[in-house]
């Protein structure tokens, strides 16, 4: 908080000359921003992959292939399977485990339960880290604001010893403090955008999964009745 008239106002100088707490806030925001961008890209790839897998599986399923063969194929290539394939594998596996003479209602009930469990697990996987993005989007502006308020407080406190106050005394302090807000916003804005986008995408996927589950139970019930 020097009070000379000619100030080095370069970005790096502003950061290095900030007070320790503001620097700490900047460091935290930097880490938050880094991890939030990491999750943004991870979720982007995951959701894209799931949507593609779901499209492919629905294509194959409604073309009317043999369900046993489809099940066997999914089991054998389980490392490349999508969420919907896993739901199908769980439901069909549970359905075929029951011996032939069992009550149809009970078979369908346990099949639905198995699919529901897998569905929950898959949704949990798809929605993981989305809450982190939401937290970053809502909290990081406040963290940045805290750093800024602290920096401006310091820069005004340094005015108390000066008889004639000019804007040049406060300006560098405020500038370096405002960098914290800027960093907070830089972390928050993409996180909020990504959260909203990914939440709607996972919702779409969830609807598709649920309707597929209902349709699969119908298909299986018809098959058992035959």
């Amino acid at each position: 908080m020097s009070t000379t008239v000619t100030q080095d106002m370069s970005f790096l100088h502003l950061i290095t000359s900030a007070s320790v707490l503001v620097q700490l806030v900047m460091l935290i925001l930097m880490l938050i921003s880094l991890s939030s961008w990491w999750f943004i890209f991870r979720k982007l790839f995951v959701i894209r992959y799931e949507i593609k897998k779901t499209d492919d599986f629905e294509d194959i399923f409604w073309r009317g292939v043999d369900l046993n063969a489809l099940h066997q194929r999914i089991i054998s290539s389980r490392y490349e399977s999508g969420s919907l394939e896993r739901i199908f594998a769980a439901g069909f596996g549970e359905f075929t485990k029951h011996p032939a003479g069992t009550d149809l209602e009970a078979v369908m009930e346990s099949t639905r339960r198995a699919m529901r469990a897998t569905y929950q697990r898959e949704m949990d996987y798809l929605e993981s880290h989305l809450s982190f993005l939401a937290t970053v989007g809502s909290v990081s502006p406040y963290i940045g604001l805290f750093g800024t308020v602290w920096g401006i407080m310091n820069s005004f406190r340094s005015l108390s010893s000066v008889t004639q106050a000019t804007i040049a005394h406060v300006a560098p302090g405020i500038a370096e403090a405002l960098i914290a807000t800027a960093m907070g916003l830089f972390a928050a804005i993409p996180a909020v955008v990504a959260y909203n986008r990914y939440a709607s995408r996972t919702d779409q996927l969830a609807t598709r999964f649920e309707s597929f589950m209902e349709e699969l139970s119908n298909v299986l019930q018809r098959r058992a009745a035959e």
Partner: protein
Amino acid sequence: MSSSDPRNFPHSEPRSLLAGVLAVLVHVLFIAFLIFGVSWKDHPPEGMVVDIWTELPKPIQAPPKQSKPVQEPVKPEPEPSKPEPVKPEPPKPEPPKPEPVKPAPPKAAVTPPVKKPDIAMKEKPEPVKEKPDLEAQKKKEQEQERIKEQERLKELEKQKELEKKKELEKKKELEKQKELEKQKELEKQKELAKQKEVEKQKALEKQKELQKQKEQELAAQRQREQEAKAQREAEAQRAAQQAAAKNQVTNEIGKYKALILAKIRSRIVMPPDLPGNPVAEFSVTLLPGGDILDVKLSKSSGHSSFDSAVERAIFLSKPLPLPPDPGLFNEFRNLNIKVHYHE
């Protein structure tokens, strides 16, 4: 059982490492943009510079005029240099001249062998003359002598002619040599003259260069003097302006203080019949715009009726008249107002 256990289906998350790399890349780009893209204010604008430039338009226009004459003498420089390559050309014909001079000495060497045969001819006739014969033979001898004499005469004449020829040849040779010498001398003189001319030209060029340098120095000095003059004038102008501004400021302040006092005086309801000429002093704190923030009695007149009358008048006379220039407000922030009972 285990193969169909749904928990055995691992989630193969695609490209999580790539995501990390991309995240770091985004930040690197953002920081690079902040550091290099945004033009952070490194130097605050210096207001003084603007003042100087607005006051010095004329001296700035003048220097280019002076600089032109400085450039003009520089241009003629290639012109004197053009004759220089011309000078070396005349010396070129010189070398061919000495070449014909060299063949001349061999000619002189050829002439001496011509003399030797002449001497041999002289010796042979002499033994013929010494033979003693009879009287009969005397006539013959006489005739012979005559003939001999004639021959001698002829020979003498021949010899003379030869000698003359020799002499002529010698003379010619001498003349040739002299001519050659003269030519050599002339050439030497020419060379000397040329050298002198070259030296003169060199000296002239040096003089020209010196003159140019002097002119340039003079021009530079003139420029400096003019700049200095312009600076002095500008400084004088500035000083005069500042003095004028100060005068104006003091005038303004005085004027408005008088106006304030007059306005307050006009609002005083004077208490009647006070003895003497009591003086009340108030310190008034003003707000920008002429509003009154605070009025304190700093020195009482001794008559509370007069003090309170003045205080009321001060409050009544708000807004106080203030100069339109807000820069002068500092002079009016804390006013000391002295009010006399009698003017």
